[in-house]
């Protein structure tokens, strides 16, 4: 219901003299609601859907470079063996090692070791995440803490975890606790750092939106700060995992808890028996576990990026 206002143009004629006024026909009758214009524009602006490749194709595309890398490494290894640089019993070839590996992984004993090591890794990592998150949240919340502890956390991250073992052994003797201590102290700073930088870099416009929507205190954390810091937190977790896995492997070689036949202990035993092939087998096992877990973190990271539209697509 257009309301007829008296024309104000009477007083304005000539005021826009330099401005050439285009004569435009009045918009009448054509789709007065403008609905078609709006949805037409929306349809034009939305990117056309690209054909998704099927799952097999996508897996193959991401897998072949990795398979090629493995093939290259095995080939170089084989060439070194063929060159007789070291005797066979010191540096066995891939053939020997892979057949040994096949024997090892079919024993229940081996899987007990893997289970023990993974339980340690996951427990240590979970504790590190809990502690790192608490410390990170506290540090980012209180400015004085932030100034005091912020740089300390970064310093801790650069510290090689193996340096902690002498102290850990003095504090906890040769025990699970000594290993846990080092795993946690290795991983927690990365987790805390991930959270802190996530909270620090919540975009200003989002914070303003939060303000406009009246978010305060807990609600602000629940609905804005925590979700917004998620990508950074996940990279912190990923880095934390890498540190805890390294610390754990160092720990299992140094702190041999009686009766606990973990992967590290088995590797140490193989070395004591001068069984190079078995040592390499365990190296491969540790590598494979590391890669598998990294794949999990990457999958989580990619899923998040895709959901948030942080990728180029």
């Amino acid at each position, binding site marked *: 219901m*257009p*309301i*007829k*206002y*008296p*024309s*104000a*143009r009477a*007083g*304005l*004629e000539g*005021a*826009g*003299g*330099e*401005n050439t*006024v*285009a*004569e*435009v026909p*009045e*918009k009448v009758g054509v789709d007065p*609601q*403008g*609905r078609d*214009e*709006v*949805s037409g*524009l*929306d349809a034009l*602006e*939305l990117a056309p859907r690209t054909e998704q490749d099927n799952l097999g194709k996508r897996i193959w595309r991401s897998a072949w470079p990795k398979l090629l890398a493995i093939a290259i490494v095995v080939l170089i290894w084989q060439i070194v063996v063929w060159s007789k640089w070291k005797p066979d019993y010191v540096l066995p070839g891939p053939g020997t090692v892979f057949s040994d590996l096949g024997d090892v992984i079919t024993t229940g004993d081996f899987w007990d070791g893997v289970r023990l090591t993974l339980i340690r890794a996951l427990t240590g990592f979970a504790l590190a995440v809990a502690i790192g998150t608490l410390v990170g949240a506290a540090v980012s919340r209180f400015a004085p803490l932030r100034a005091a502890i912020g740089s300390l956390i970064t310093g801790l991250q650069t510290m090689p975890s193996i340096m902690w073992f002498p102290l850990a052994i003095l504090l906890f003797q040769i025990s699970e606790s000594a290993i846990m201590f080092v795993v946690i102290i290795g991983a927690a700073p990365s987790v805390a750092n991930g959270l802190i930088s996530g909270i620090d870099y919540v*975009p200003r*416009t*989002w914070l*303003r*939106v939060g*303000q*406009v*929507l*009246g*978010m305060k205190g807990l*609600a602000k954390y629940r*609905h*804005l700060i925590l*979700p*917004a810091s*998620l990508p950074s937190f996940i990279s912190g977790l990923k880095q934390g995992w890498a540190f805890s896995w390294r610390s754990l492997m160092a720990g299992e070689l140094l702190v041999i808890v009686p009766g606990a036949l973990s992967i590290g202990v088995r590797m140490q035993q193989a070395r004591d028996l001068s069984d190079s092939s078995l040592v390499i087998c365990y190296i491969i096992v540790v590598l494979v576990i590391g890669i598998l877990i990294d794949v999990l973190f990457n999958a989580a990271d990619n899923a998040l990026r895709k*959901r*948030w*539209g*942080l990728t180029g697509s």
Partner: protein
Amino acid sequence: MSLVETQTPRPVTGRGDAVVRLENVSKQYGSGSNALLALDRVSLTVQQGEFVCLLGASGCGKSTLLSLVAGLDKITSGTLDIGGRHVSLMFQEAALFPWLSVAGNVELPLRLQGVGKAERRKRAEELLEIVRLSGFGHKRPHELSGGMRQRVALARALAQNADILLMDEPFGALDAMTRDILHDELERIWREQNLTVLFVTHNVREAVRLGDRVILLSSRPGRVIEDYPITHERPRRIDSPEVSGQAAEITDRLRAEVARHAN
């Protein structure tokens, strides 16, 4: 002081009450020799149902003014009275949260108010219908175009059920075609929802296209230098002779103001 002498009567329904009143509002950032006076004794009144555009060159404190009205910032002196009314604010960026779906973003203000899930969902659907985005609720913000995201932001602002909608160059980042269509949309929603809008822009034609009044601000410090009633019949077109003519007049005034800062 206005160039148009006859003050036109406003339509009767619900209009006429002052919902925003600023009297001699000044805003100063910093103090001493570093002090920056952003707004200098600004007085203006926005009435219920009115669409007021604030226009000015850079440094006129338009955005500062909106922040003050929104309560995001405190005035240095003067009186600012919005009678305890609720305001919502829209920016140039849609600033939707990527961890929520489109509907989730619209529901968020309701969620913060403690509205139940079923009610929330229903209301979000209605709001998306208002901005003509029914069926897009399940999408992620990044899957929409800039114009669509801005409409989601509008739906989110409407979800706050505020009395006053503040808009800070909301269409500044959009292409001309999209902006043109969104002007029609905003005008329609403003009319249907009986909104009071305070709209900041540096685009003169946009201001004349949309506003009941265009308030021209000077720069550094921001002062009200002119208050133009825009009385052309709605719906208007941005390229109609009336809008262009008045825009040209206001542009001249704005240019004179900008030129004052030369040297």
